[in-house]
Structures are given as C-alpha cells and as structure tokens.
C-alpha cells in the first residue's frame, strides 16, 4: 500500500517535470522560433544594411548580441521584427525602428518590447523596469544603449555621464561644481549609485535606501554608533547634495547655517554675524571701538561648528555624545 502510494507520487512528479520542461522549452524558444536568428537569417537585412551603411551595422557582431554560437543571441528580426513589408519594399519602414533621428522611429513601448523579450526576465533580467521612473516617463532602452556599437558610451564609466546628461541637465551642471564626486573621471559614474533599470530604492538608487547606497563606498559612516546623529541615520541627503555643491564636502549649506537649521539651543541659538570675517565688513561700536576681539566667533569662522563637533556622523567614544570625540 505504502509502495503503491510512493509509485503514484513518483509518477505524478515525473509527469509534472515533463510538463514543466516542455512548457518552459516551448515558452523560451517560441519567441525566438518566430524569426530566423541565424547568420543566414540576418542576411535578409545585411544584404542592404552592410558595411557601407552610413552608421555601422555589422559592428553588432563584435558585441554580445552578435555571438551566434550562443543560442540566446538574437537575429536582426528578433529586435526589428519580421518586417515583411520592408523586405518586400525597402521604402516602407521595418516593424521596429530604433534610430533616434529617424522620422519613423517606433514608440518607446514598441522599442522596449523588443529588448524586454529577453531582458525582462531571462538575460540580465530587468524585473523592476515595469513601473520604474524611466519606464513611466517614456524612456526607451535605445535612448541610452547603442546595441550595434562595440563600445557603448553608457557602459563606459567615463562617458556614461554624457548619456545621462542628455536629459538630466541640472545634474550635469552640478557635477562641475567646486565640491563633487569623481563622476567626470569615471570613478563614480552615475550607475555607481543609480540603477536606471528600476530598483527597490528611492530615486532609482542601487540599494533600498539613500544611506545604504552611500555606505557602499562610505562604509565607515554605517555604524551603528554609540551616539547616533538623527539626521544622519535618517538620510544622508538631509545635509549633503550628492551631485555637487559650492561647499565641501558636498554640503547643502555652509556651517553654521546648516547646523542652525536644526539647532537652537546653547551656543547654537546665537546669531553669528559675518562681521569682521576676513574679506568681510568690519563692524565697530560707535564707529570707534573695534569689535575684533569679540567677533568673528569661532562658530562663525573657519570650520565653525565642525571645528569641535567633527564626529558629526556619529561617535563611538563613550564621551562623544556631543560629536566631539
């Protein structure tokens, strides 16, 4: 009795596995089976779109999309569609047109559908793409990617910011400010912090929060510290502006103004005037008595608050509750 049940169970499992395998095989191959992805199939296109074409076409064979021995590799029609009418009459447009300057360019949805056939879940899956900021704003994969290029600008950390800057103009200006990340040098390209294909984090960040993204390079700020500074734990961008600032290190405002945005007790309550700062206005009492001995105060000069409260990201010193140790 027991053996019989086990046999039945084995049969059921086998049946399930066979069905699953067939369905998976069918599912994965069906999309590609509709077109001829072989070189011979490509020749339908490359007869005309050959090496003399105005933009390099055949260079795709140097890219990952051109490795024909990889059974996942697409053919021309995998991405551009079967384009039957175009094959018959070259004056008509192919099913899917990617050329950015083409008058016949397909919609972002149509262009993306070509890429997502494979990339939505099977090859370098972009599962978060649907509903992501870029998808919702009508960005197409080929707005950033040049599938036929041997060296894609967006994949080179040095040239990547140019691609992002096509739309993100304010950020493009900010990365040239006095204080900035080494974005232009390709050491911290945009993709170091942002996953443009969609993510669990805000602002398409690679991690699920601003802070966890920052900690990928600034792990020393992670703590947990004995004495935590609430805005630091909350969000690094409470004080920092990551794309660039007039003030090092990437601060939103110069201290003491930044600190006084939140602190109004003890000496943080005081008004720190710019009087008598180097290059500033000189203030005197009744026009005679210099106030040089009274101003500028240390809190409004030089490093100001940070001259003393230097462990502002948190302190692990038992006497460091005031971020001075």
């Amino acid at each position, binding site marked *: 009795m027991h053996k019989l049940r086990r046999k039945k169970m084995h049969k059921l499992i086998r049946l399930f596995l066979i069905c699953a395998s067939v369905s998976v095989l069918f599912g994965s191959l069906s999309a590609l089976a509709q077109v001829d992805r072989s070189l011979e199939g490509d020749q339908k296109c490359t007869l005309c779109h050959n090496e*003399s074409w105005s933009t390099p076409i055949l260079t795709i064979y140097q890219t990952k999309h051109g490795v024909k021995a990889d*059974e996942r590799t697409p053919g021309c029609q995998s991405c551009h569609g079967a384009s039957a009418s175009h094959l018959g009459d070259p004056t008509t447009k192919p099913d899917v047109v990617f050329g950015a300057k083409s008058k016949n360019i397909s919609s972002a949805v149509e262009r993306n559908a070509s890429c997502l056939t494979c990339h939505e879940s099977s090859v370098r899956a972009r*599962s978060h793409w649907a509903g992501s900021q870029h998808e919702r704003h009508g960005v197409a994969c080929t707005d950033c990617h040049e599938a036929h290029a041997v060296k894609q600008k967006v994949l080179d950390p040095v040239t990547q910011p140019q691609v992002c800057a096509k739309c993100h103009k304010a950020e*493009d200006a900010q990365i040239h400010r006095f204080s900035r990340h080494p974005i232009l040098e390709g050491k911290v390209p945009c993709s170091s912090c942002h996953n443009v294909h969609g993510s669990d984090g805000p602002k398409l960040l690679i991690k699920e929060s601003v802070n966890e993204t920052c900690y990928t390079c600034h792990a020393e700020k992670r703590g947990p510290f004995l004495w935590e500074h609430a805005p630091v734990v909350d969000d690094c961008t*409470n004080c920092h502006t990551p794309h660039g600032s007039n003030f090092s290190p990437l601060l939103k405002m110069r201290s003491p103004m930044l600190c006084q945005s939140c602190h109004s007790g003890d000496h943080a309550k005081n008004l720190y005037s710019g009087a008598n700062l180097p290059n500033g206005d000189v203030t005197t009492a009744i026009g005679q008595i210099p106030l040089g001995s009274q101003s500028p105060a240390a809190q409004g000069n030089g490093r100001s608050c940070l001259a003393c409260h230097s462990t502002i990201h948190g302190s692990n010193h038992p006497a460091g509750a005031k971020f001075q140790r």
Partner: protein
Amino acid sequence: MFSLLAGSRSYAYSQAPAASPPAPTAASQTTPTNTVDAGVGGVSGSSFKFGEYNGLQNSGPFGIGNFDFRGGAAYDSKSTWRWQMRGRNLGLETRSLYAEFGKQGKYQFFLSYSELLANRSDTYQTPYLGAGTGNLTLPSNWIFPAAPQASATKLNFRAFDPFAGAGSVYNKLGVLTAPTTAQLATLASIIAADVPGFQSVYLSTKRTRVDAGLLYNASDRLDIPLSYTYEHKSGLKALGAVTSQVAENSVTLPTPVDFDTSQANAAANYKFKHLYLSLAYYGSFFTDNVSSVTWQDVADPTKSATLANPPSNQFNQFTFMAAEKFKDNMKLVVSGSYGRNTQNDPFLGPSTAANGQLAFGLPVPSLNGLVVSSLVNAKFTAKPNKKWNLVAAYKFFNRDNQTPVHTYFFQDANETKSGASPFAGLYGVPAGLGSNTNIYQNRAYSEMTNQADGEAEYTIAKKQWLKASYQWQKIDRTCPGSWIGCADARTTDEHTLGADWRRTSVGSLTGRVSYAYSWRRGAYNEDAFLALVPMANQIPAGGATESAFAYLQATGLTAYGPIAGLPSSPLTGNAAIFTPNNNIVPQSLYGSRNNINELPGMRRYMEADRNRHKALSDLDWQATDKLSIHGNGEYTDDDYLNSAYGLKKDVFWAASMDASYAASENLVADVFYTYDNRRLLTRGDAYGSNSTTAFVGQAADTLISGGCYPTVVARNASAKIDPCLNFSKGDRDKIDTLGFSLSRKGLLSGNLELATQVLYTRARTDTSVLGGSYVNNPLALAAPAPPLASGIAAVFFIPAVNYPTVRDDEITVSPTAQYVIKKKTTLKAFYQFQRMMSSDWIYLGMQYGSGANFLPSNEKAPNYAISAGGLSLVYAF
C-alpha cells in the same frame, strides 16, 4: 580623446577610436580591434584641486598609457569564447585595469583593479608631529600661545600673527593699551618657538580596489552571479578636535585614514516561463585599522585627548525577488530583504580617553550594536487596454535599531568635575558625580516607512499622455530602550498628488510638463531630546518634588520654560527650581552640561510639517535635420509652514538649454547653459536669560544704544522675549554653467580630427543675516575703571552683517587632435588649460591671526592657472 582628460573637469568626452579614413569593410566591422596608446604628457603647475581626482596634482611629466585588447571566437564560429583586457591611465595614480573572459551563455569571469586618488589640500600646515599615525605630538619646544596683553593664561592663537597678536586691548581702567615691551618679547618668543613648527602636510586619500566576479549560467533557467570587492583606503584628512569645550578651543588634526572594506555578492536567479525568482546575498565588512587618534593639548602638552575613529562594522543582507508576468500587459514584482548591521568594537576606556572624561567608568566594554533592516516591496503594473497604463506599489522599510541602551557618565572635553550633581548617589548614579557631569543615554534610532503609490496614465491623443499619481508615505520613528520617545515627530504622514503631461513626436517637438504637490504633517514633540538625559525623569535633590519631565508635563511647558520675561513676583516651589525667573530648565537638573533644549516652534526640517510644490518641464525640438534644441526647467518650493524657527523655506529652480548643430557628419557644435538658483531661509532667536541685573560694569553704566530696550534692566527683564534677538539668515546659491564643444572630422583627406571643449562655471553663495546682538561697551568695566560718562551707552546693539560671498570661477579649455599617420597608427594630442579663482571665508579663517581659539592650518582656497598636455601614439591591430 585621452581618457585622463576626464579627470581634468572637462565636460564632454569621447572614446572614439583612431580616425580611420579607409572605407570600412565587413571584416573591419566584425573583427575586434586592439589598441595600445602610449605617450608622454606634462603638467605646468601643482595644485591639489586641479588634480583632485585625476592624478595630475604635480607639475612635471607623466606617462600616458592605455590599452584595449579584445579577442576570442569570431561571431560566426561555433564557439562562444570571448575575452577582453583594458587598461586606462596607467601612468597615473588613477590607473585601472580590467580583464574579462568567458563563454557567453555559460560563464563569464572578470577581474579589475582600480585606484582613486582624492587630493584634499596642498596648503595644510600643522605643528603636530606623527601625521599618519594615531599619536600626534607637539614639538618639544612648544610654548603655550597667548596674547599676554589680553590674558597670560587664556589660549589665543592670534599670538602666531605678529600684527593680530600685538593688538592693543582695553585695560581694567578702560584705556586702550598697547602691549608692553615684555609682552611683545613674550609674543616674539611664542612665534619663534611655535610658528616654525608648522609644517606642510599634504592631505589626500587613496582608494585601491580589486573586484572579481563570476557569472555562471548553470542552465538556461539558472544564473549564479558572484562577486567580491576589496578596497583599501589610506591617507590623511583634516579633522577638527576640541581641546576645551568650555573655552571652545579646538585644533585641526592630520587624521589618519586606514580603512579596509570587503563586499561580497552572491545570487541565484531562476526563470520559469513568466516567473522570475532571485535570491541574493550581500555582505559588507568594514575595518578601521586605526581605532583612535591621541593628540597633545596645545594649551598644556602634559595632557592629551583621544578622538575615536569610526568603528569597524559588518553588514549581512539577504534579498529575494519574485516577478510574474501574468499576461503581456500585467506584471507583479515582489521583493524584500533582511539585513543585520553589527558593530562591537571595544570602547576607548578611561585610560585612553585622557583628561578624566570617563572617570566614572563604562557601563559596558563595547556597544554590541545591532541594526536589523527589512524591506518588502510590491509593484503591480497593468495595461488593461491601449489607452490606460496603471501602476500600484507598496513599500515597507524598517530600520530597527536593537542596540542596547545604557547610561554613560562623562565630563566635557578638558573640564574637571565641579560641584555635586543633584542625582549623585541616587537612582544608581555614582556618588561622586559633579554638577557638570553628563549623564547620558544612547538613543537607538529606528525608523519604519510605509509607502503606497498609485498612478494612472491615459493616452489622450496619439503620442500624448496624461498622468495622475498619488503617493502616501508614513514614517514612524522610535528609539527602542529609551525611557521616552526620542523622535521630534513620532509619526509623519506625507501625501503627494501629481499630474504629468507628455508628448512625443517624431522629428519635431517632444515635451513634458509635470507638477506635484505634497503635504507632510506630523505631531512634533519638543521634549523628545530628553531621551538623551534619563535624569529628566528623576527627582533631583535640592527641594524639587517632581522630576523635570513631570514638571514640564504638569505645566505644559517645554524645557525652554514659559515664553515670558521676568515674573512680576518671585516664583516659588518647583517653578522656582525648574524655570527660575521663567528661564529654561537648568541643565544640571537633567544631568547635562549643556542646555540641550530647543526653541519652542523650532522644527527640524526632515520631520517638520512641509508643503512642497514641484514642477518640471522639458522640451526637445528637432528644429531641422541639423539643429536640435533642448530646454528644461525644474522648480521645487519647500515651505516649512509650521516652523517658527529653523529652516523655513528651501526654494530651488534651475533652467537649462542645450543646442546642437550638426552642419555635416564631420562638423558638430554643441552649446549648453544652465542656471541654478537655490534660496534657503532659516530663523532663530538668540534669547538670553531673564534677570534683575541693572548695569554692566558699574552701577551707573545702564544705558543701551539701539536694540529694543533703553536700559540694561529693561532688557534683562525681557531677555527671553526680546524681539531684537530674533534673526534670520538667507543663503542663496547662484550658479551659471556654460559649455561649448566643437568637433571637426575629415580634415587633411580624412586623416585629421579636431575637437575642442570649453566649460565655464561661475558660482556665488551669499549669506545674508538680518538681526543683531547686544555687545557690551569695552569701556564699561568694573572699578577701578571709571564709570562711563553720563549718556554713554554701556551696551550697544550691533546689527549683524552679511557673510562674505563665497566665489568660485572656473574655466576649462580642452582642445584635442587625432591624426592618422598610417592605417594602424594614429597620433593623438591633447591640451587643457584650467583656471580656478575661488574665495571662501572658511579658508580665510584658517590663517594665522584670524581666529583666537582654533589652531590655524593656513589652508588656502585653490586659485590656479594650470596647463596640461600630452602626445601619444595609438597603434591599432
């Protein structure tokens, strides 16, 4: 262009292969080209800022070395084997190397090495010896710096400047008096002994990073990506360190950076029809090799103090994701994570923390810190028909800080214990505690976010869409283990309504306009800071019948006390103890050395009630086949409407325009301009303490010039509510960024390609200050000085003045040329000129003579005009 130019703040780059005039062939387009680029370059001057990240900080020659090799099976072969190796900036400390090989669809392995230099200052000076170590000492002949004519016992770093140090002072008789010969001699001896000890220390840090990774395609359904990163960061950075909190004296130390960070990633990604599953691990392990920095006290080298460096920490996280595409038009993605962040470095004990700061010992030897973070994210997208596009999402994120909470006793920096704490010997508090001993509890900040999003987009016409969206976000902030809620706003709710219109069109106009309005509200708790001081919940000795917190609860006051002047009749009972003269709660009554209350109405902006308007616009116009124009604008207006003090307004707007003209395939010009403007408004109140004090100096010195009250007694009676002590500060950033580029190809029979780029940035930050302060007349002195003459003010109200403008002007000109000598050989040349003119009071304040109580470092704002250029040969094969 040379890749190293990228490090020189140029604004556009190209990695174009060498100009290749011969007509392309199928073979040339399908066969990888290897390139080697070697040459020499030079830099005309030295500046840390010019070479901040690009490795060109020193004048002189440098090597140019780049290579790019690719190979493996041909596209039409039966093999999927491919490899590549790249090297960049090999002659500089920003070099990188990359190697990759694998069988596509089977496995891929990569290995990379990268250096990143961050130059921080080339003008920093310090008298401290031992830079680079955790033990900083002063020169053996160090003399206590004081301006003896002002005070022989008070630290005064202006003594290092012969002019500022020798300034006249008002003596006890109110006479402006120049230093005596003996005092000048003392000053000279200080300068002679201490100033030569200031040595230049170059401040920079360098990251050296190795990455390795493997992508293993176990089957057509299963991928296993693995990667590991190791990074070492070392160098020096300047860090402020307080030597005396009471006197507010500080030094700037050359602090060592010696970090090791390892990061590991592993995942298993599984596909099954329309179902995608992923399970991943992320680990990050940070080690600080220098746990602390000890330095000698500039006021008394027999003493030293210790600063704790960031502790080593660990983070382990597991994530999962499941995505199912139900139909072509519906998808559900559910993801989540669970992470544990730990930290248990030994505390610096009483013996390492000098100056008796930890004389009362430690409750535990280390923190045993633990933060558990968890995430659940679900997103559903649907396109029910051709007209509609719907998105619904929910997110839960929790930072649960489970770090144990303990009470710590410590003295402030360089302050000896005095008096007796009203809690000494009570509630488990050591008996010997002084009235100036801090009794603090750590706060384990936790934050839980719930967020829901909904969005509907409707196609209103061909290539035109209208979208409406709504977002709700609720954040709960807690501190497990604290005796009272620690969050300024325990819960905040934010709602955002948005609308967006966009249109795409082919060949002419693409546009987008969006607007969102948010409102955030929360219940603000102005006594949340008391979580730091557990004694606020205990009855202090000395006559009080309740704790400070109970008193505040009973009276409805905050620790600021009543918003009132001197009471008409003396207060009695608990009121006289906790809010004497209607003033703030005395710090010792909650076991603090500082007044840590805030102003009533002060709201921390990250939790404060806020209304936000946000608008974006974008326009792309392909005017002709050759000319395209792109413009966009951005506007954000944050209004902290219920904040009487603190940040009130934050308004940002930016406008950009970019025009590109392609006269032909060989001639392209591009120009862009961006203007950024940001305004921040902060309000404060420099309130004083109500008192009956009627004069300054002597009994007859009672008049005030300016301000809101005519006499000292009137002002002091209303010191807490003096409207003249209200102030505001306005910060305004104005930044213009202008760029131009021109590229010309096809010259000299197609062998020459020229390009140039120009970038100009003009940044200004103005800080305006509205308000003023009362300043005592330096002649209003106690006897034996004579009293002031009748009618002369004893106190002046001095209006505040604006801060000096922070300026940064920078222009970069970068012409480049490539000339094809032979089919495989190209000569490349680059030149870059960069001029920076900056002025910032933060640097000016660090010079000799500027500050009395912080050690000068003589750091200078960068100002330079530097050229860099180079020639190299590119061989392609």
